[in-house]
């Protein structure tokens, strides 16, 4: 990736300011159309997903009570992994985006939802909804670009630290929920002394309380309930958490790191118009192609482009509007990044490996232009 402002040929050079505003109006129209048609069908959908997820979880935990029996361990672990993924992705992430707030059901609302993840919902809503979605792929502003521990853009200054980034990325994937929690605590800011200590302490307490509750549930109570199967239940729960972490990390990598997804300099968001904001979202995200199961398990983040354009529209509608969005991309001569899960994940990992090393070839060209360097992402 290289910020579009530093590329030899900008992918948006052919668009005039009027074009960009017209594009914004077209995207607004799609939004209005969905908002106007939200109704019982959508409400039924999310309730069904939530009910199904809870049934899968209960059934899996019940099966794991006899996890000493290997087929039970396998079935329970698979089921619990699926339940945890659904809970984080299609339910938690989307509910906390406010996608279902219009239902006015206090049980399915962004202000009341808490999820099965180490980071408390309030902290996550701030770092994700307010920072990541606002500053999508803006170097130095969107911390999701490398999570402060990786170099994912040629424009980020290289240092020896980054030689280890394939390893950091793998470890972050395994422990993703804790990585997210640490990242929501903005530990980088703390190190630089740019944070209020009391506030940080309170937030840390909240995270630790949540981690303790989750650990008590998965690593103490459910194993104890399993009696002779205690150890195998513990290993099943740990495996399910690991699977969920690896999966969610992979889906998110596919959303912003594959080849073709663009990044932006800080200057690009100064006085940004609505049309320009849409344009940045269009170019700053990538989709994953696949079937209904993939869309469900990614929480419809397989429609990451549509999600970034309309983060608060119900997730079950992304698929429906994708063809319209794609048509707008092609009409305005823009690149709609999409590909299979292995292809996108491979591409994202290739970037991680490639940028572990200093820039070669094209990457150097940008550097010579003498433009101000963006601040490197935080090296925590």
């Amino acid at each position: 990736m290289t910020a579009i402002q530093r590329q030899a040929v900008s992918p948006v050079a052919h668009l005039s300011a009027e074009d960009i505003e017209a594009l914004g109006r077209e995207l607004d129209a799609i939004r209005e159309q969905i908002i106007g048609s939200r109704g019982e069908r959508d409400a039924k959908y999310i309730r069904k997903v939530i009910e199904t997820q809870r049934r899968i979880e209960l059934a899996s935990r019940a099966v794991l009570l006899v996890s000493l029996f290997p087929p039970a361990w396998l079935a329970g672990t698979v089921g619990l992994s699926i339940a945890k993924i659904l809970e984080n992705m299609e339910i938690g992430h989307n509910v906390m985006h406010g996608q279902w707030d219009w239902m006015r059901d206090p049980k399915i609302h962004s202000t009341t939802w808490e999820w099965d993840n180490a980071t408390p919902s309030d902290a996550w809503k701030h770092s994700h909804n307010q920072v990541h979605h606002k500053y999508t792929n803006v170097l130095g502003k969107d911390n999701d670009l490398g999570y402060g521990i990786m170099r994912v853009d040629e424009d980020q200054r290289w240092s020896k630290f980054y030689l280890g980034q394939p390893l950091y990325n793998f470890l972050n994937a395994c422990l993703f929920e804790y990585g997210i929690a640490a990242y929501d605590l903005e530990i980088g800011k703390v190190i630089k002394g740019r944070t209020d200590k009391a506030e940080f302490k309170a937030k840390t307490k909240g995270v630790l309380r949540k981690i303790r509750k989750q650990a008590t549930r998965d690593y103490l109570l459910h194993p104890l309930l399993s009696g002779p199967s205690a150890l195998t239940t513990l290993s099943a729960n740990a495996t399910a958490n690991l699977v969920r972490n690896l999966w969610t990390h992979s889906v998110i990598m596919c959303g912003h790191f594959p080849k073709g997804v663009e990044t932006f300099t800080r200057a690009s968001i100064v006085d940004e118009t609505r049309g320009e904001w849409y344009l940045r979202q269009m170019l700053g995200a990538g989709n994953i192609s696949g079937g209904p199961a993939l869309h469900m398990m990614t929480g419809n983040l397989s429609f990451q482009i549509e999600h970034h354009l309309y983060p608060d529209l119900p997730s079950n509608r992304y698929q429906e509007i994708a063809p319209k969005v794609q048509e707008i991309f092609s009409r305005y001569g823009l690149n709609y990044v999409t590909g299979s899960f292995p292809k996108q994940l491979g591409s994202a990992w290739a970037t991680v490996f490639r940028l572990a090393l200093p820039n070669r070839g094209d990457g150097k060209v940008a550097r010579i232009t003498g433009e101000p360097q963006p601040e490197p992402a935080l090296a925590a």
Partner: protein
Amino acid sequence: MPLVLRKTLSPRKCDAQVVAILDSPRTPQSGGPSLKAAATRVARLLATPLVPSDYLDLFSPLQSPAQLRARIVEVRPETRDAATLVLKPGRGWRDHVAGQYVRIGVDVDGVRQWRAYSTTEPPRADGCITVTVKAIADGVVSNHLVRRSRPGQILQLDQATGDFVLPQQRPAKALFLTAGSGITPVMGMLRDGLDSLDDAVLVHCAPTRDDVIFGGELRRLAETSGLQLIERHDDIHGMLQVEQLDQLVPDLAERETWVCGPTGMLDAAEAHWSAKGIIDRLHTERFRPLVVVAGEGGTVNFGTSNISVEADGATPILTAGEAAGVLMPSGCRMGICMGCVVPLREGVVRDLRTGDLTTAAEGDGVKIQTCINAAAGACHIDL
């Protein structure tokens, strides 16, 4: 919209409180309080980040200790545009007195809507309660309840409240004056206490004879019990003028009187009873907001939700908040049930019915009804 008024404040049960409480449904009954508390704690830890009732709801939504609900047992058509719902309330239901109202939450086109309806029967042996709903023009909820309710459906419910009921000490002479769906709380009172009333007159107005809700039962009561029923049908008699009551009920001044109907009727009754100096004998139940007065509007900041909206001076804060995605508690949406009351921490709001201003200084928690108050300046609300 059949319903209710009363200016008494009832304890508000905020929809968002749900998550709070939680006694585990599987707590052993025999154990002492500490054992029960320990079991509750374990159940909550097992369910974290949800609560045990979230799982219990999968199997038995009426057993929820956190949210009172009801199942529709029967839907009985009353007239061409009114129907009675027989509801089985879930765990946690406390009794009601006939004539009191309940708030009912129903998902219409995916959106939860709350409205208040009068109970039309005294407590029954089977534990069910009844409400009678009249579909009004453009009434989102009333039309849904009358036309799309089916036995087996689950509704959200709140405890009964209100004091439009017969007093323990029955009056020697009673008069009930109702129009349209205004009959509903009075029907509850009659079914409950007609036997104990020595002398009761009911003057009921409806557009036509067929539009009289509970028409058959009222006429039967008039034949078999002491109820003196005076039906007034607009198509035959014309609209009832309150002065005509003096001829219809000559001893009106001696009667303890309950009135429920449209605003015009209530206003006229209040004026008439006041003129006679017997206003203390009049009990009214209002169900329409009064005149709308436009204010100045302003920025409404919902602190807990971290949402700010620009609201104009004619839009109730409830509507503005809902449009912005704030989880607003709501009820009758007409200034009656107090289901929408929230603390105004700072700012000024205007009552859309009277034009009166309510001001809160920084740190105050003045309780305001969001459904009939609009912003009249910048406001900070705890939601």
